[in-house]
């Protein structure tokens, strides 16, 4: 156990990623206590486009709203999109990947074919198509992103199952007459959970980036809900007059996604000794 502590400490990326992630969670949970003003009710055209100052740390936007408050509340959108859509992804991907890998035969062929078709559609393009169908809105973003990346989880899960299925401890479990569900969920799943966890944290980063992109394009979360991507949508026009509008929401996305990517990398190094011996 001592070694685990040592190993985790040596992984700077894991530690940094975890800290960033915890900070984002903290900010999202306690947003009402941290934000100086309400993110959209306190619009006041008298104070529009003020540069960052002691009073408005991040400045104000064209409608006179405090950018710091909006960035703080924006963490709730990003985090919920990341968690919920990745949860949908993981459940679909794990169920299909596990059953396809374990049962094989026709079911496997079908799942692999569908997953391959899904993988041949660039994720953002697919998400855009789903948004075109459903129309904008936060709930629709959950659904669109939840349906987008499951094929990656499915592929990883399936390949892990194929590798684990022939491990002798699985054969031994079969030889002792254990049922299929017991073997799949109690013997195989716990042993392939590492790579799935890695996928999940990288997938969350991806989902957050995609939500920001969708909102930037005006097809994601709708105003006045303070999505980080949406806040940047109009920023280009004010680049000459109020560049700070572009800085802070983007920085927030960047740091959050970076944190999750570091977390994913760190987990991979930790859980996959094959890859980690290099550091």
């Amino acid at each position, binding site marked *: 156990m001592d070694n685990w502590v040592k190993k985790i400490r040596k992984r700077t990326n894991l530690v940094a990623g975890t800290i960033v992630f915890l900070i984002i969670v903290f900010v999202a949970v306690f947003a009402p206590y941290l934000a100086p003003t309400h993110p959209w009710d306190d619009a006041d055209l008298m104070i529009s486009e003020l540069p960052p100052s002691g009073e408005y740390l991040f400045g104000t936007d064209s409608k006179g709203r405090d950018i710091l408050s909006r960035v703080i509340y924006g963490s709730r959108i990003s985090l919920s999109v990341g968690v919920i859509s990745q949860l949908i992804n993981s459940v679909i991907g794990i169920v299909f990947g596990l059953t396809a890998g374990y049962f094989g035969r026709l079911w496997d062929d079908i799942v692999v074919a569908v997953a391959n078709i899904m993988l041949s559609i*660039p994720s953002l393009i697919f998400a855009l198509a*789903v948004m075109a169908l459903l129309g904008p809105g936060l709930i629709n973003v959950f659904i669109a992103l939840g349906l987008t990346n499951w094929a990656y989880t499915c592929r990883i899960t399936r390949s892990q199952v194929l590798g684990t299925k022939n491990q002798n401890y699985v054969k031994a479990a079969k030889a002792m007459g254990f049922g299929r569900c017991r073997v799949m969920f109690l013997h195989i799943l716990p042993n392939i959970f590492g790579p799935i966890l890695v996928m999940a944290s990288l997938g969350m980063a991806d989902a957050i980036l995609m939500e920001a992109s969708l909102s930037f394009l005006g097809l994601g979360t709708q105003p006045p809900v303070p999505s980080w991507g949406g806040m940047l949508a109009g920023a280009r026009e004010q680049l000459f007059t109020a560049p700070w509008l572009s800085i802070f929401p983007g920085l927030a*996305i960047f740091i959050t*996604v970076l944190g999750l990517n570091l977390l994913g990398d760190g987990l991979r190094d930790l859980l996959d000794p094959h890859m980690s011996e290099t550091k």
Partner: protein
Amino acid sequence: MISYVLRRLIQFVPTIFGVTLIVFFLLNVLPGNAAMMAGGKNRIPPAAQKLMIKKWGLDQPVYARYFKYIKGLCTADLGTSFISGERVTDVLAPRLWPTFKLAVIALAIACVTGIPLGFYSALRQGTAMDTVTMIGAVSGVSMPQFWLGLLLMYFFSVYLKILPTVGYGNGDPKFIILPAITLGVGYMALLARTTRAAVVETLSQDYIRTARSKGISDLLINRRHVLRNTLTIILTSAGLQFGSLLGGTVVVETLFSWPGLGTMMVNSIYYRDTPITQGCVMIIIVGFLVINLLVDLSYALIDPRIKYQ
């Protein structure tokens, strides 16, 4: 080898078919909706709606329309726009070249910088340079493109005033610099990470130890033994990740008002012009599939295990 190439080519057909199926049904499951929303937020009188529904054949069942669409695809007919009534192919044709140019230049920037960086980093594992490069790479992967674009725009156009902000500039090369860099950076970072991982993995192989035991110089080991093996791994993952670059064109084109397929697609979604959206999606996906097909075919040249299959 011929059998391998043939097999890959034939596998291409059902994939395309599957993709059209998914895309078509995704965009057409709500038949009335498209007509209702056609023309954007301006509501159309019910009488006109009925007329439009009839005109576009939206009263037919989805599968019938799908077969019609497939039939059209075979003759390179992507349908007609709901808004302008023009043929989709005519609308999209002038948009192809700007997007293609943007994607290729971004790809070139990414490959020329990303692969050497990853290689360099792997060979100097654990050094400060390696750490800096890899922090840079993970940052590049995490960077939202529209934000990076805004920052570049601010620095080069607003602050230094040496490059134009947005637009196509009638093909003036100055205009493509910022969009191409913006689009390429994420992909470059991906390539650098993939390359580093592949090289590190290869370096730990037994046959590299064998090469060392033969007294061959490090340069030759890296150039010949490592590179050759790494190439297949990089190509595979570069092909799969190419989708992120194509998806990025939508964002980057919108940010830089670049007259390509991406802006067209976003606009068509605003205006509920389904045939146009569909056309854009299909073209982008086919581009992605073709790239991956080329990647797979190139294995046959690199890996003898496939050649002799």
